[in-house]
């Protein structure tokens, strides 16, 4: 079984040290790639890099487009190493085929927590190591977009190296034609130059020759100082098609003869369909078929709304066993009990919890709720089973994994399955492998209607009530301060429904620490939600450290800085955010300022939030100043957009987000009862980069974790009310009392 931790590449961070050469394709593989994905006049010259006769460089991206801009930034990394003319660079989606598995990600995945340095691999094995890992990645059918890994894994360990090797192969091809040494040639703007003789060739003229040269597995990479494309905010490729309705998402697929399907899944997770009678929809216009699945009923019609209206008229009976009695309260009671009886130690530093014995502990218990992803495009897939072959179209965060999942659902060998990976209207973790329920339903529907393409679309209600939720987590702290007011003991016990979370390990230098996890599994399906474990531990840790700072009567920024004395990047990022936010400058009554810093996916993000608390307890977030150290941003404006997006994703969840369980099922159904951030909630946002020489960090997720604690710390500063249980909106009357008292 795939755990969430495996899916989100928890071990990938360690691959930051992976510096072995990446195994590049020999010419036989290039020919296979040409057959599969090259158009007339194009040749693959290296993994993922095609060159056309007109010098156009096309980067074949082994990822999906879910809006983070990676097609553009990965192409920037390729163009930089190739010395390509940026105006002649394009990107396209790689076919969902093992040939295009994203190997570098697989290496990180397989390596888990192990670091590989060239020094600890015998020289003769180096190529083999990289090679064998890539084989494993293919075997595992990985083509994942998740874990904020596209740039820092596929880009750094894959595409950049493939492009550098391709450049060397182009140079070698030109040098051979001129009968000169490669060292006397240079590259500029998609041409190879021999300056001594004034001769040059365009990349397009050399591509076929270049492809016959052996790639170096250790090509020379450009030093950062010579970058002219990486580090610039070139406009994204995809945006012009996203302002005129032209981008076709999974939901927009249209095949000849296609029918539409709507579904009703057992409201109680794990419930099975016992019976359903088609009589209520008999004779309705356009209805083709009612299909019974294990835990759902599907209606297929000639138009989506007819299928949707018909499925709503059915009275399916589901068997939910004992699960129908589960509520949020029963789940909370189990979590509370687990913190007392099911703890397993994960980390001990110094004397651990024993150090508490002689001291009076400061205690606090925190909680976060289940959250839905609520991607704007509801889950959907289109499938047709024809002449023994299955063809599927959908937006997912793993094209290859999706293809494998469809084959499994259909009971077909993978060779009989074609999967078309389409752009998606938001992913946020919902469309990762392991969470392909929507593909399974669509494939089973198509298998029941051979020859007919069927598009299955979840209504918003089905999407919200059949998600894989951000887990509901409880976290209990006990701490003691030394004579200097600094924390001397940090004890943290938390619940988890997966492996222990490294995100619970703190940045701060505290001499005695004991961190333990208690496993609690419920029938509510959970999964990765943008920033995953960091989304809850960031809130817990950054809130409780704030409590300790206030207990010590210390400034929250100065207190953290003291605890980060051995972490210069973190201290610098915190200092930058504090300075830009005007930390320490007085605020008007009713306003408060809070800070939080979280490292996730190898990027350090610090946020300072300014809030205004009204007398009625409502909280408005006025301004967020964020400092980011992601090494360097490949596309600074794109990175800024990701941090902005992360702030709003986290802000909406902190203010309003809560999925509750009643009668074994989700109580919320649509945006009226699951509010998310809107324009009216949007603060002024400022983003500042702290550039460092650290390896590139992730972009999609690290903007999320600090915002909730920055806001609740600001609420505390304004009112003296400490929010230990999200969302904030649940505590309006408490905040109102605090606001009135502090006036």
């Amino acid at each position, binding site marked *: 079984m795939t755990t969430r931790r495996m899916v989100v590449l928890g071990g990938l961070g360690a691959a930051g040290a992976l510096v072995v050469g990446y195994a590049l394709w020999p010419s036989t593989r290039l020919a296979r790639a040409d057959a599969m994905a090259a158009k007339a006049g194009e040749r693959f010259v290296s993994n993922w890099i095609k060159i056309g006769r007109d010098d156009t460089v096309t980067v074949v991206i082994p990822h999906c487009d879910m809006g983070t801009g990676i097609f553009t930034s990965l192409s920037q990394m390729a163009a930089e190493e190739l010395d390509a003319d940026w105006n002649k660079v394009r990107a396209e989606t790689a076919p969902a085929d093992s040939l295009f598995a994203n190997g570098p990600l697989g290496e990180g995945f397989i390596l888990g927590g192990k670091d590989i340095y060239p020094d600890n691999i015998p020289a003769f094995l180096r190529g083999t190591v990289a090679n064998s890992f890539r084989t494993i990645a293919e075997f595992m059918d990985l083509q994942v977009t998740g874990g904020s890994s596209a740039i820092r894994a596929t880009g750094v360990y894959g595409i950049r190296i493939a492009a550098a090797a391709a450049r060397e192969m182009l140079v070698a091809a030109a040098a051979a034609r001129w009968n000169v040494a490669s060292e006397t040639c240079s590259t500029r703007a998609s041409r190879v130059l021999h300056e001594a003789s004034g001769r040059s060739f365009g990349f397009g003229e050399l591509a076929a020759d270049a492809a016959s040269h052996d790639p170096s597995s250790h090509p020379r990479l450009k030093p950062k100082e010579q970058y002219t494309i990486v580090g610039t905010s070139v406009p994204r490729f*995809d*945006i012009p098609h996203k302002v*005129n309705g032209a981008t076709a998402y999974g939901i927009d697929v249209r095949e000849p003869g296609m029918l539409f399907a709507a579904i009703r899944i057992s409201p109680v997770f794990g419930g099975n369909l016992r019976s359903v009678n088609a009589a209520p929809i008999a004779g309705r216009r356009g209805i083709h078929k009612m299909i019974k699945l294990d835990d759902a009923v599907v209606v297929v019609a000639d138009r*989506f709304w007819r299928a949707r209206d018909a499925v709503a008229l059915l009275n399916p009976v589901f068997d939910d066993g004992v699960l129908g009695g589960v509520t949020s309260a029963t789940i909370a009671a189990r979590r509370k009990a687990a913190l007392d009886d099911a703890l397993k130690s994960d980390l001990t530093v110094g004397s651990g919890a024993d150090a508490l014995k002689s001291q009076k502990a400061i205690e606090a218990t925190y909680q976060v709720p289940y959250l839905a992803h609520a991607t704007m495009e509801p889950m959907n897939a289109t499938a047709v089973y024809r002449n023994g072959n299955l063809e599927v179209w959908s937006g997912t965060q793993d094209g290859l994994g999706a293809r494998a999942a469809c084959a499994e659902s259909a009971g077909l060998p993978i060779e009989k399955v074609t999967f078309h990976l389409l752009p998606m209207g938001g992913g946020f973790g919902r469309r990762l492998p392991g969470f392909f329920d929507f593909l399974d339903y669509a494939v089973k529907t198509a298998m029941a209607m051979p020859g007919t393409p069927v598009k299955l679309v979840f209504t*918003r209600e089905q999407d919200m009530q059949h998600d894989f939720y951000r887990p509901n987590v409880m976290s209990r702290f006990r701490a003691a301060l030394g004579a200097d007011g600094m924390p001397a003991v940090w004890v943290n016990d938390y619940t988890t429904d997966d492996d222990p979370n490294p995100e619970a390990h703190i940045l701060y230098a505290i001499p005695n620490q004991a961190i333990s996890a208690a496993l609690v599994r419920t029938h509510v399906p959970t999964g990765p939600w943008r920033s995953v474990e960091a989304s809850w531990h960031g809130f817990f840790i950054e809130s409780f450290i704030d409590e300790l700072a206030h207990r010590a009567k210390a400034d929250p920024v100065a207190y953290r800085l003291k605890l980060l004395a051995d972490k210069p990047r973190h201290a610098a990022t915190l200092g930058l955010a504090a300075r830009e936010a005007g930390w320490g400058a007085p605020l008007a009554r009713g306003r408060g300022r809070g800070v939080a810093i979280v490292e996730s996916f190898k990027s350090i993000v610090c946020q300072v939030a300014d809030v205004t608390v009204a007398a009625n307890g409502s909280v408005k977030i006025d301004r967020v100043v964020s400092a980011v150290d992601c090494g360097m941003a490949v596309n600074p404006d794109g990175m800024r957009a990701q941090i902005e997006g992360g702030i709003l994703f986290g802000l909406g969840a902190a203010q309003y987000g809560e999925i509750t369980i009643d009668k074994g099922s989700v109580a919320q159904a649509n945006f009226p009862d699951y509010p998310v951030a809107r324009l009216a909630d949007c603060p002024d946002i400022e983003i500042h980069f702290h550039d460092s020489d650290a390896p590139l960090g992730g972009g999609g997720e690290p903007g999320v974790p600090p915002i909730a604690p920055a806001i609740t710390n600001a609420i505390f500063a304004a009112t003296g009310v400490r929010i230990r249980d999200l969302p904030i909106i649940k505590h309006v009357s408490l905040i109102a009392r605090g606001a009135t008292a502090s006036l």
Partner: protein
Amino acid sequence: MTIRLNVNGATRAIDVEPDAPLLWVLRDELGLTGTKFGCGVAQCGACTVHINGEAKRSCVIPVGAVADMQIVTIEGLSAHGPTPIQKAWVEHQVPQCGYCQSGMIMAVSALLAKNPSPTDDELKTEITNICRCGTYPRIRAAVRALAAPKALP
């Protein structure tokens, strides 16, 4: 039953139930998939189109109620190339996943037609469409730029 629908300047007769939602008629009958389905209850605005110049959420409008009215979708808005709003959206690199942006642009264009220089408060009240990627800061920046008085040549 046949309903006459005027979409993007062309009138078509469509054999459809009068209570069919306009959104799905646009998408499934007419193939105009630029207008998106997000919630089905007029909460998210992904399905926003213009009806007689007003921004309306098409997922809850029965098609029979808009027969012979002037309906404009994102495809119609873009028929003669990008409008100044769409250019501003590119200039400010607004979209991320892009799914909500058709509706967002339709909502903003109807607002700017009535009120070319909305204040931030007016924008907050008038533009209630949901974007899960969090493109709001850029939407606000793009609208501010569009609303700024243009320098005289």
